[in-house]
Protein backbone atom coordinates (compact mmCIF):
# COMPACT_ATOMS: atom_id res chain seq x y z
CA UNK A 1 0.00 0.00 0.00
CA UNK A 2 1.37 3.43 -0.88
CA UNK A 3 2.19 6.04 1.75
CA UNK A 4 -0.43 8.71 1.03
CA UNK A 5 -3.23 6.13 0.86
CA UNK A 6 -2.17 4.60 4.15
CA UNK A 7 -2.12 8.05 5.70
CA UNK A 8 -5.60 8.69 4.35
CA UNK A 9 -6.91 5.46 5.84
CA UNK A 10 -5.45 6.31 9.22
CA UNK A 11 -7.36 9.58 9.28
CA UNK A 12 -10.44 9.37 11.54
CA UNK A 13 -12.05 12.23 9.64
CA UNK A 14 -11.97 10.21 6.41
CA UNK A 15 -13.47 7.19 8.16
CA UNK A 16 -16.25 9.04 9.89
CA UNK A 17 -17.25 11.02 6.80
CA UNK A 18 -17.29 7.89 4.63
CA UNK A 19 -19.36 6.07 7.21
CA UNK A 20 -21.72 9.02 7.49
CA UNK A 21 -22.15 9.22 3.72
CA UNK A 22 -22.75 5.48 3.47
CA UNK A 23 -25.35 5.57 6.23
CA UNK A 24 -27.18 8.63 4.89
CA UNK A 25 -27.38 7.32 1.33
CA UNK A 26 -27.56 3.59 2.03
CA UNK A 27 -30.03 3.40 4.93
CA UNK A 28 -32.69 1.63 2.78
CA UNK A 29 -30.11 -1.06 2.10
CA UNK A 30 -30.03 -1.86 5.80
CA UNK A 31 -33.74 -2.80 5.89
CA UNK A 32 -32.83 -6.48 6.22
CA UNK A 33 -30.47 -5.80 9.13
CA UNK A 34 -33.06 -3.82 11.10
CA UNK A 35 -35.78 -6.40 10.25
CA UNK A 36 -33.56 -9.10 11.78
CA UNK A 37 -32.66 -6.99 14.80
CA UNK A 38 -36.27 -5.94 15.50
CA UNK A 39 -38.45 -8.82 14.22
CA UNK A 40 -41.46 -7.59 16.25
CA UNK A 41 -41.65 -4.25 14.36
CA UNK A 42 -43.97 -4.11 11.31
CA UNK A 43 -41.97 -1.20 9.81
CA UNK A 44 -38.32 -1.53 10.82
CA UNK A 45 -37.10 1.29 8.55
CA UNK A 46 -37.92 5.01 8.80
CA UNK A 47 -39.24 5.94 5.36
CA UNK A 48 -41.33 9.12 5.80
CA UNK A 49 -38.41 11.20 4.60
CA UNK A 50 -35.08 10.27 3.02
CA UNK A 51 -32.16 10.44 5.43
CA UNK A 52 -30.40 12.73 2.95
CA UNK A 53 -33.14 15.33 3.17
CA UNK A 54 -33.27 14.97 6.97
CA UNK A 55 -29.51 15.44 7.25
CA UNK A 56 -29.48 18.45 4.95
CA UNK A 57 -32.39 20.05 6.82
CA UNK A 58 -30.61 19.33 10.10
CA UNK A 59 -27.34 20.84 8.92
CA UNK A 60 -29.15 23.81 7.43
CA UNK A 61 -30.88 24.57 10.72
CA UNK A 62 -27.68 24.16 12.74
CA UNK A 63 -25.60 26.27 10.36
CA UNK A 64 -28.16 29.05 10.22
CA UNK A 65 -28.53 29.10 14.01
CA UNK A 66 -24.73 28.80 14.27
CA UNK A 67 -24.11 31.80 12.05
CA UNK A 68 -26.57 33.87 14.07
CA UNK A 69 -25.01 32.74 17.36
CA UNK A 70 -21.47 33.23 16.02
CA UNK A 71 -22.15 36.71 14.64
CA UNK A 72 -23.86 37.85 17.82
CA UNK A 73 -21.24 36.19 20.02
CA UNK A 74 -18.40 37.72 18.02
CA UNK A 75 -19.94 41.18 18.03
CA UNK A 76 -20.71 40.90 21.73
CA UNK A 77 -17.19 39.70 22.49
CA UNK A 78 -15.65 42.55 20.52
CA UNK A 79 -17.96 45.09 22.17
CA UNK A 80 -17.19 43.71 25.63
CA UNK A 81 -13.45 44.16 25.15
CA UNK A 82 -13.54 47.70 23.72
CA UNK A 83 -12.87 50.61 26.00
CA UNK A 84 -16.41 51.93 25.50
CA UNK A 85 -18.03 48.54 26.04
CA UNK A 86 -16.12 47.28 29.03
CA UNK A 87 -18.90 48.26 31.41
CA UNK A 88 -21.39 46.10 29.52
CA UNK A 89 -19.22 43.04 29.75
CA UNK A 90 -20.71 41.54 32.94
CA UNK A 91 -24.20 42.16 31.55
CA UNK A 92 -23.29 40.43 28.28
CA UNK A 93 -21.86 37.44 30.05
CA UNK A 94 -24.93 37.15 32.27
CA UNK A 95 -27.30 37.32 29.31
CA UNK A 96 -25.37 34.70 27.37
CA UNK A 97 -25.20 32.61 30.52
CA UNK A 98 -28.97 32.73 30.81
CA UNK A 99 -29.23 31.68 27.16
CA UNK A 100 -27.13 28.64 27.94
CA UNK A 101 -28.86 27.80 31.21
CA UNK A 102 -32.39 27.81 29.82
CA UNK A 103 -33.00 24.35 28.41
CA UNK A 104 -33.73 24.56 24.68
CA UNK A 105 -36.93 22.65 25.34
CA UNK A 106 -38.12 25.47 27.58
CA UNK A 107 -37.23 28.05 24.94
CA UNK A 108 -39.16 26.00 22.40
CA UNK A 109 -42.15 25.91 24.72
CA UNK A 110 -42.07 29.69 25.08
CA UNK A 111 -41.32 30.36 21.42
CA UNK A 112 -44.02 28.20 19.86
CA UNK A 113 -46.98 30.26 21.13
CA UNK A 114 -45.21 33.39 19.87
CA UNK A 115 -43.95 32.35 16.44
CA UNK A 116 -45.81 29.10 15.74
CA UNK A 117 -44.61 25.58 14.98
CA UNK A 118 -41.80 24.62 12.62
CA UNK A 119 -38.20 25.62 12.15
CA UNK A 120 -38.43 29.20 13.45
CA UNK A 121 -38.81 28.44 17.18
CA UNK A 122 -36.01 25.88 16.78
CA UNK A 123 -33.81 28.50 15.19
CA UNK A 124 -34.40 30.88 18.11
CA UNK A 125 -33.69 28.21 20.72
CA UNK A 126 -30.52 26.99 19.02
CA UNK A 127 -29.15 30.48 18.37
CA UNK A 128 -29.63 31.35 22.05
CA UNK A 129 -28.10 28.08 23.16
CA UNK A 130 -25.06 28.45 20.90
CA UNK A 131 -24.33 32.05 21.82
CA UNK A 132 -22.43 31.52 25.07
CA UNK A 133 -19.54 29.37 23.80
CA UNK A 134 -18.79 31.85 21.02
CA UNK A 135 -19.08 34.87 23.29
CA UNK A 136 -16.84 33.32 25.93
CA UNK A 137 -14.28 32.25 23.35
CA UNK A 138 -14.22 35.70 21.75
CA UNK A 139 -13.76 37.41 25.11
CA UNK A 140 -11.04 34.95 26.13
CA UNK A 141 -9.31 35.13 22.75
CA UNK A 142 -9.24 38.92 22.67
CA UNK A 143 -8.15 39.06 26.33
CA UNK A 144 -5.23 36.79 25.55
CA UNK A 145 -3.54 39.26 23.17
CA UNK A 146 -0.50 40.37 25.21
CA UNK A 147 -0.22 43.97 26.40
CA UNK A 148 3.19 44.35 24.72
CA UNK A 149 1.77 43.66 21.27
CA UNK A 150 -1.12 46.07 21.83
CA UNK A 151 1.25 48.73 23.12
CA UNK A 152 3.56 48.29 20.12
CA UNK A 153 0.65 48.37 17.67
CA UNK A 154 -0.81 51.52 19.08
CA UNK A 155 2.60 53.15 19.58
CA UNK A 156 3.45 52.49 15.94
CA UNK A 157 0.30 54.28 14.83
CA UNK A 158 -2.41 51.69 14.25
CA UNK A 159 -5.92 52.99 14.81
CA UNK A 160 -8.14 51.00 17.21
CA UNK A 161 -9.93 49.44 14.23
CA UNK A 162 -6.61 48.43 12.65
CA UNK A 163 -5.47 46.93 15.94
CA UNK A 164 -8.68 44.89 16.03
CA UNK A 165 -8.47 43.64 12.43
CA UNK A 166 -4.74 43.22 12.01
CA UNK A 167 -3.71 42.11 15.47
CA UNK A 168 -6.44 41.10 17.88
CA UNK A 169 -8.80 39.08 15.67
CA UNK A 170 -6.05 37.13 13.87
CA UNK A 171 -4.37 36.35 17.18
CA UNK A 172 -7.66 35.36 18.81
CA UNK A 173 -8.87 33.38 15.79
CA UNK A 174 -7.87 29.90 17.00
CA UNK A 175 -9.65 30.41 20.32
CA UNK A 176 -12.73 31.94 18.69
CA UNK A 177 -12.88 29.08 16.22
CA UNK A 178 -12.75 26.60 19.07
CA UNK A 179 -15.77 28.37 20.55
CA UNK A 180 -17.63 28.22 17.24
CA UNK A 181 -16.79 24.53 17.04
CA UNK A 182 -18.20 23.83 20.50
CA UNK A 183 -21.29 25.87 19.70
CA UNK A 184 -21.95 24.04 16.43
CA UNK A 185 -21.33 20.56 17.79
CA UNK A 186 -23.57 20.90 20.83
CA UNK A 187 -26.27 22.35 18.59
CA UNK A 188 -26.08 19.39 16.21
CA UNK A 189 -27.24 17.29 19.13
CA UNK A 190 -29.64 19.86 20.53
CA UNK A 191 -31.33 20.48 17.17
CA UNK A 192 -32.90 17.01 17.41
CA UNK A 193 -35.20 18.39 20.10
CA UNK A 194 -36.61 20.78 17.51
CA UNK A 195 -38.40 17.84 15.92
CA UNK A 196 -40.85 18.02 18.83
CA UNK A 197 -42.17 21.33 17.45
CA UNK A 198 -42.52 20.12 13.90
CA UNK A 199 -39.12 20.80 12.35
CA UNK A 200 -38.12 17.99 10.00
CA UNK A 201 -34.59 16.88 10.76
CA UNK A 202 -32.61 13.97 12.18
CA UNK A 203 -34.60 14.38 15.40
CA UNK A 204 -37.75 13.30 13.58
CA UNK A 205 -37.03 9.51 13.43
CA UNK A 206 -35.97 9.68 17.09
CA UNK A 207 -39.07 11.55 18.31
CA UNK A 208 -41.44 9.52 16.14
CA UNK A 209 -39.67 6.34 17.22
CA UNK A 210 -40.00 7.20 20.91
CA UNK A 211 -43.69 8.10 20.52
CA UNK A 212 -44.44 4.92 18.54
CA UNK A 213 -42.25 2.52 20.56
CA UNK A 214 -40.16 2.00 17.42
CA UNK A 215 -36.62 1.42 18.67
CA UNK A 216 -35.34 0.91 15.11
CA UNK A 217 -36.34 4.48 14.16
CA UNK A 218 -34.61 5.84 17.24
CA UNK A 219 -31.48 3.87 16.45
CA UNK A 220 -31.39 5.01 12.81
CA UNK A 221 -31.80 8.69 13.72
CA UNK A 222 -29.32 8.49 16.57
CA UNK A 223 -26.67 6.73 14.47
CA UNK A 224 -26.72 9.33 11.72
CA UNK A 225 -26.95 12.17 14.25
CA UNK A 226 -23.98 10.89 16.26
CA UNK A 227 -21.84 10.39 13.19
CA UNK A 228 -22.75 13.84 11.92
CA UNK A 229 -21.67 15.41 15.22
CA UNK A 230 -18.39 13.47 15.27
CA UNK A 231 -17.59 14.30 11.65
CA UNK A 232 -18.30 18.02 12.09
CA UNK A 233 -16.23 18.11 15.27
CA UNK A 234 -13.27 16.46 13.55
CA UNK A 235 -13.54 18.71 10.51
CA UNK A 236 -13.74 21.91 12.54
CA UNK A 237 -10.88 20.73 14.73
CA UNK A 238 -8.80 20.23 11.63
CA UNK A 239 -9.64 23.73 10.44
CA UNK A 240 -8.74 25.23 13.83
CA UNK A 241 -5.38 23.46 13.87
CA UNK A 242 -4.52 24.77 10.45
CA UNK A 243 -5.45 28.24 11.64
CA UNK A 244 -3.29 28.03 14.72
CA UNK A 245 -0.16 27.14 12.75
CA UNK A 246 0.41 29.51 9.86
CA UNK A 247 2.00 27.64 6.94
Amino acid at each position, binding site marked *: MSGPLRQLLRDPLVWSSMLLLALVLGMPGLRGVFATLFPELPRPLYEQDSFLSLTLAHLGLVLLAGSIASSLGLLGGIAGTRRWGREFRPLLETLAGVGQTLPPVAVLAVAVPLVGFGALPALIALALYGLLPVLHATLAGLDSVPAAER*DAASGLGMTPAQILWRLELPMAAPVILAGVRTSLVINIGTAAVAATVGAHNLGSPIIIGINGYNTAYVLQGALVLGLLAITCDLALGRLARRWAHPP
Partner: protein
Amino acid sequence: MIELSEVSKTFGQQPAVERLSLTVARGEFLVLLGASGSGKSTTLRLCNRLLEPDSGSIHFAGTDLRSFEPHVLRRRMGYAIQSVGLFPHWTVAQNIATVPQLLRWSKARIAARVEELLSLLHLDPATFKDRYPHALSGGQQQRVGVARALAAEPEVLLMDEPFGALDPVTRQALQEEIARIHRVAGTTILMVTHDVDEALRLADRLVLMQQGRVLQQGSPAALLAPPLDTKVAQMLGGRELGLRRLALQTVASRARPELASPGPSIAADANLREALDLMLQQACDHLNVHDAAGQPIGRLYLADLAEAGA
Protein backbone atom coordinates in the same frame (compact mmCIF):
# COMPACT_ATOMS: atom_id res chain seq x y z
CA MET B 1 11.84 68.76 17.75
CA ILE B 2 9.87 67.88 20.90
CA GLU B 3 9.20 70.44 23.56
CA LEU B 4 7.51 69.73 26.86
CA SER B 5 6.61 72.67 29.02
CA GLU B 6 5.35 72.46 32.57
CA VAL B 7 3.87 69.01 31.95
CA SER B 8 2.21 67.15 34.80
CA LYS B 9 0.65 63.72 34.82
CA THR B 10 -0.92 62.00 37.80
CA PHE B 11 -2.06 58.40 38.11
CA GLY B 12 -4.68 58.22 40.84
CA GLN B 13 -3.11 60.04 43.77
CA GLN B 14 0.42 59.41 42.57
CA PRO B 15 2.07 62.19 40.56
CA ALA B 16 4.20 60.50 37.87
CA VAL B 17 5.52 63.64 36.22
CA GLU B 18 5.43 67.06 37.86
CA ARG B 19 5.78 70.36 36.00
CA LEU B 20 8.38 68.89 33.72
CA SER B 21 9.98 71.01 31.04
CA LEU B 22 12.26 69.39 28.52
CA THR B 23 13.42 69.98 24.97
CA VAL B 24 14.61 67.35 22.54
CA ALA B 25 16.70 69.00 19.85
CA ARG B 26 16.72 67.82 16.24
CA GLY B 27 19.39 65.19 15.61
CA GLU B 28 20.12 64.73 19.30
CA PHE B 29 20.43 61.47 21.24
CA LEU B 30 18.68 62.29 24.49
CA VAL B 31 18.58 59.73 27.28
CA LEU B 32 16.23 59.89 30.26
CA LEU B 33 17.84 58.11 33.17
CA GLY B 34 16.17 57.32 36.45
CA ALA B 35 15.06 54.63 38.85
CA SER B 36 11.72 52.94 38.25
CA GLY B 37 8.93 55.28 39.25
CA SER B 38 10.95 58.37 38.37
CA GLY B 39 8.52 59.23 35.57
CA LYS B 40 10.84 58.59 32.65
CA SER B 41 8.57 56.11 30.84
CA THR B 42 5.58 58.33 31.48
CA THR B 43 7.47 61.23 29.91
CA LEU B 44 8.21 59.12 26.83
CA ARG B 45 4.61 57.96 26.48
CA LEU B 46 3.39 61.54 26.76
CA CYS B 47 5.47 62.39 23.69
CA ASN B 48 3.48 60.14 21.33
CA ARG B 49 0.14 60.58 23.09
CA LEU B 50 -0.04 57.08 24.51
CA LEU B 51 -0.72 59.19 27.60
CA GLU B 52 -2.29 62.61 27.78
CA PRO B 53 -0.90 65.22 30.19
CA ASP B 54 -3.13 66.57 32.97
CA SER B 55 -1.63 70.00 32.48
CA GLY B 56 1.08 71.71 30.51
CA SER B 57 1.70 71.46 26.79
CA ILE B 58 3.83 69.43 24.41
CA HIS B 59 4.90 70.55 20.95
CA PHE B 60 6.24 68.39 18.14
CA ALA B 61 8.00 70.09 15.23
CA GLY B 62 6.52 73.37 16.42
CA THR B 63 2.91 72.15 16.51
CA ASP B 64 0.85 71.45 19.62
CA LEU B 65 0.52 67.69 20.10
CA ARG B 66 -3.23 68.01 20.64
CA SER B 67 -3.74 69.16 17.07
CA PHE B 68 -2.40 65.85 15.70
CA GLU B 69 -4.51 62.75 15.28
CA PRO B 70 -2.72 60.31 17.64
CA HIS B 71 -2.16 57.65 14.95
CA VAL B 72 -0.87 60.19 12.44
CA LEU B 73 1.54 61.56 15.01
CA ARG B 74 2.77 58.11 16.00
CA ARG B 75 3.51 57.11 12.41
CA ARG B 76 5.99 59.99 12.31
CA MET B 77 7.72 58.69 15.44
CA GLY B 78 9.42 55.31 15.78
CA TYR B 79 8.53 53.28 18.85
CA ALA B 80 10.56 50.45 20.36
CA ILE B 81 9.93 48.91 23.78
CA GLN B 82 11.63 46.48 26.12
CA SER B 83 9.09 43.72 25.56
CA VAL B 84 9.49 44.26 21.76
CA GLY B 85 5.89 43.29 20.99
CA LEU B 86 6.51 41.74 17.59
CA PHE B 87 3.27 40.52 16.03
CA PRO B 88 3.53 36.72 16.28
CA HIS B 89 1.31 35.95 13.27
CA TRP B 90 3.42 38.08 10.93
CA THR B 91 6.82 37.30 9.44
CA VAL B 92 9.86 39.44 10.20
CA ALA B 93 9.37 41.27 6.90
CA GLN B 94 5.70 41.93 7.61
CA ASN B 95 6.53 43.16 11.10
CA ILE B 96 9.10 45.61 9.80
CA ALA B 97 6.66 46.76 7.12
CA THR B 98 4.01 47.68 9.71
CA VAL B 99 4.25 51.45 9.49
CA PRO B 100 5.16 51.72 5.78
CA GLN B 101 2.05 49.63 5.12
CA LEU B 102 -0.08 51.94 7.26
CA LEU B 103 1.36 54.82 5.24
CA ARG B 104 0.51 52.95 2.01
CA TRP B 105 3.99 52.82 0.56
CA SER B 106 4.29 50.87 -2.69
CA LYS B 107 5.14 47.18 -2.43
CA ALA B 108 8.50 47.63 -4.14
CA ARG B 109 9.47 50.48 -1.83
CA ILE B 110 8.48 48.48 1.24
CA ALA B 111 10.42 45.40 0.10
CA ALA B 112 13.51 47.49 -0.57
CA ARG B 113 13.23 49.22 2.80
CA VAL B 114 12.83 45.90 4.65
CA GLU B 115 15.99 44.53 3.03
CA GLU B 116 17.86 47.73 3.76
CA LEU B 117 16.87 47.67 7.45
CA LEU B 118 17.65 43.99 7.93
CA SER B 119 21.11 44.59 6.53
CA LEU B 120 21.51 47.74 8.64
CA LEU B 121 20.81 45.67 11.77
CA HIS B 122 23.04 42.82 10.65
CA LEU B 123 20.31 40.29 10.00
CA ASP B 124 20.76 38.48 6.70
CA PRO B 125 17.60 39.31 4.69
CA ALA B 126 17.48 35.95 2.91
CA THR B 127 17.64 34.07 6.21
CA PHE B 128 15.37 36.18 8.37
CA LYS B 129 12.82 37.88 6.09
CA ASP B 130 10.29 35.04 6.14
CA ARG B 131 10.82 33.80 9.68
CA TYR B 132 8.21 34.17 12.37
CA PRO B 133 9.16 35.97 15.60
CA HIS B 134 9.03 32.80 17.71
CA ALA B 135 11.94 31.43 15.67
CA LEU B 136 14.23 34.32 16.69
CA SER B 137 16.48 34.78 19.72
CA GLY B 138 15.81 37.65 22.12
CA GLY B 139 18.55 39.76 20.57
CA GLN B 140 17.28 39.10 17.04
CA GLN B 141 13.74 39.97 18.10
CA GLN B 142 14.89 43.31 19.47
CA ARG B 143 16.85 43.98 16.27
CA VAL B 144 13.63 43.42 14.34
CA GLY B 145 11.81 45.63 16.85
CA VAL B 146 14.28 48.44 16.22
CA ALA B 147 14.06 47.89 12.46
CA ARG B 148 10.28 48.10 12.69
CA ALA B 149 10.55 51.35 14.64
CA LEU B 150 12.89 52.82 12.03
CA ALA B 151 10.99 51.53 9.01
CA ALA B 152 9.16 54.65 7.89
CA GLU B 153 12.14 56.94 8.46
CA PRO B 154 10.61 58.53 11.56
CA GLU B 155 11.54 62.04 12.57
CA VAL B 156 12.03 60.88 16.17
CA LEU B 157 12.75 57.44 17.55
CA LEU B 158 11.23 56.79 20.98
CA MET B 159 12.77 53.87 22.87
CA ASP B 160 11.62 52.58 26.24
CA GLU B 161 14.39 50.47 27.80
CA PRO B 162 14.83 48.75 24.45
CA PHE B 163 17.76 46.60 25.55
CA GLY B 164 16.70 45.99 29.15
CA ALA B 165 15.78 42.34 28.72
CA LEU B 166 18.91 41.30 26.82
CA ASP B 167 22.06 39.63 28.10
CA PRO B 168 25.08 41.95 28.53
CA VAL B 169 26.88 40.85 25.36
CA THR B 170 23.82 41.22 23.12
CA ARG B 171 22.93 44.47 24.86
CA GLN B 172 26.31 45.99 24.13
CA ALA B 173 26.17 44.86 20.50
CA LEU B 174 22.78 46.54 20.08
CA GLN B 175 23.96 49.68 21.85
CA GLU B 176 26.74 49.92 19.31
CA GLU B 177 24.20 49.38 16.50
CA ILE B 178 21.95 52.14 17.69
CA ALA B 179 24.87 54.52 18.22
CA ARG B 180 26.02 53.79 14.68
CA ILE B 181 22.52 54.26 13.26
CA HIS B 182 22.29 57.58 15.11
CA ARG B 183 25.64 58.67 13.67
CA VAL B 184 24.87 57.55 10.14
CA ALA B 185 21.19 58.49 9.78
CA GLY B 186 21.14 61.40 12.21
CA THR B 187 17.79 60.31 13.61
CA THR B 188 16.63 62.17 16.70
CA ILE B 189 16.43 59.63 19.50
CA LEU B 190 14.69 59.87 22.86
CA MET B 191 15.55 56.86 24.98
CA VAL B 192 14.56 55.80 28.47
CA THR B 193 16.82 53.59 30.55
CA HIS B 194 17.82 52.77 34.10
CA ASP B 195 21.22 51.44 33.03
CA VAL B 196 23.82 54.08 33.93
CA ASP B 197 26.54 52.75 31.65
CA GLU B 198 24.16 52.51 28.73
CA ALA B 199 23.04 56.08 29.33
CA LEU B 200 26.61 57.42 29.60
CA ARG B 201 27.71 55.50 26.52
CA LEU B 202 24.90 56.57 24.22
CA ALA B 203 23.69 59.99 25.29
CA ASP B 204 24.57 63.28 23.65
CA ARG B 205 22.61 64.75 26.49
CA LEU B 206 21.53 63.02 29.63
CA VAL B 207 18.50 63.94 31.72
CA LEU B 208 18.47 62.58 35.25
CA MET B 209 14.97 62.13 36.57
CA GLN B 210 13.79 61.68 40.12
CA GLN B 211 10.20 61.62 41.38
CA GLY B 212 8.77 63.06 38.20
CA ARG B 213 11.19 65.97 37.99
CA VAL B 214 14.42 66.70 36.20
CA LEU B 215 17.23 66.45 38.72
CA GLN B 216 20.04 67.52 36.41
CA GLN B 217 20.80 67.50 32.71
CA GLY B 218 23.80 67.91 30.47
CA SER B 219 26.34 65.96 28.47
CA PRO B 220 27.63 62.82 30.22
CA ALA B 221 31.07 64.39 30.64
CA ALA B 222 29.66 67.58 32.09
CA LEU B 223 27.43 65.66 34.51
CA LEU B 224 30.33 63.55 35.74
CA ALA B 225 32.73 66.48 36.03
CA PRO B 226 33.49 67.71 39.54
CA PRO B 227 32.14 69.28 41.64
CA LEU B 228 29.41 66.69 41.78
CA ASP B 229 26.04 67.13 43.42
CA THR B 230 25.51 64.35 46.00
CA LYS B 231 22.35 63.07 44.38
CA VAL B 232 23.92 63.10 40.93
CA ALA B 233 26.98 61.30 42.27
CA GLN B 234 24.68 58.71 43.82
CA MET B 235 22.78 58.17 40.59
CA LEU B 236 25.67 58.23 38.14
CA GLY B 237 28.70 57.22 40.13
CA GLY B 238 27.83 54.48 42.47
CA ARG B 239 31.12 52.77 43.22
CA GLU B 240 32.49 53.30 39.74
CA LEU B 241 32.63 57.05 39.39
CA GLY B 242 36.30 57.14 38.36
CA LEU B 243 35.93 54.28 35.91
CA ARG B 244 32.85 55.88 34.35
CA ARG B 245 34.74 59.13 33.88
CA LEU B 246 37.48 57.17 32.13
CA ALA B 247 34.95 55.45 29.90
CA LEU B 248 33.84 58.83 28.54
CA GLN B 249 37.29 59.90 27.33
CA THR B 250 39.24 58.60 24.35
CA VAL B 251 42.78 57.38 24.43
CA ALA B 252 43.66 60.05 21.88
CA SER B 253 42.71 62.82 24.33
CA ARG B 254 45.41 61.77 26.82
CA ALA B 255 48.08 60.32 24.55
CA ARG B 256 51.49 62.01 24.64
CA PRO B 257 53.24 62.52 21.31
CA GLU B 258 56.18 60.26 22.05
CA LEU B 259 57.90 57.58 20.03
CA ALA B 260 56.54 54.07 20.34
CA SER B 261 58.47 51.57 22.41
CA PRO B 262 58.16 47.76 22.44
CA GLY B 263 55.06 46.65 24.31
CA PRO B 264 51.26 46.47 24.04
CA SER B 265 49.39 48.95 21.88
CA ILE B 266 45.81 50.36 21.87
CA ALA B 267 43.70 52.17 19.26
CA ALA B 268 43.38 55.91 19.61
CA ASP B 269 39.57 55.80 19.55
CA ALA B 270 39.33 53.28 22.41
CA ASN B 271 38.24 54.76 25.74
CA LEU B 272 40.45 55.22 28.77
CA ARG B 273 38.61 52.56 30.76
CA GLU B 274 39.58 50.00 28.15
CA ALA B 275 43.13 51.34 28.26
CA LEU B 276 43.25 50.93 32.04
CA ASP B 277 41.97 47.40 31.73
CA LEU B 278 44.65 46.57 29.18
CA MET B 279 47.37 48.02 31.43
CA LEU B 280 46.11 45.91 34.32
CA GLN B 281 46.05 42.80 32.18
CA GLN B 282 49.52 43.44 30.80
CA ALA B 283 50.90 44.64 34.14
CA CYS B 284 52.47 47.73 32.53
CA ASP B 285 52.29 51.46 33.21
CA HIS B 286 52.11 52.71 29.64
CA LEU B 287 50.68 51.73 26.24
CA ASN B 288 51.58 52.59 22.69
CA VAL B 289 48.76 54.33 20.85
CA HIS B 290 48.00 53.66 17.20
CA ASP B 291 45.52 55.25 14.81
CA ALA B 292 42.91 53.48 12.68
CA ALA B 293 45.53 52.65 10.06
CA GLY B 294 47.75 51.02 12.69
CA GLN B 295 50.38 53.80 12.63
CA PRO B 296 51.89 54.65 16.05
CA ILE B 297 50.93 58.15 17.17
CA GLY B 298 52.13 58.31 20.78
CA ARG B 299 52.02 56.82 24.25
CA LEU B 300 49.56 56.71 27.12
CA TYR B 301 50.69 56.63 30.76
CA LEU B 302 48.94 55.23 33.83
CA ALA B 303 49.63 58.49 35.67
CA ASP B 304 47.54 60.34 33.06
CA LEU B 305 44.65 57.98 33.69
CA ALA B 306 44.72 58.79 37.38
CA GLU B 307 44.31 62.42 36.46
CA ALA B 308 41.53 61.70 33.95
CA GLY B 309 39.49 59.75 36.47
CA ALA B 310 39.55 62.41 39.14
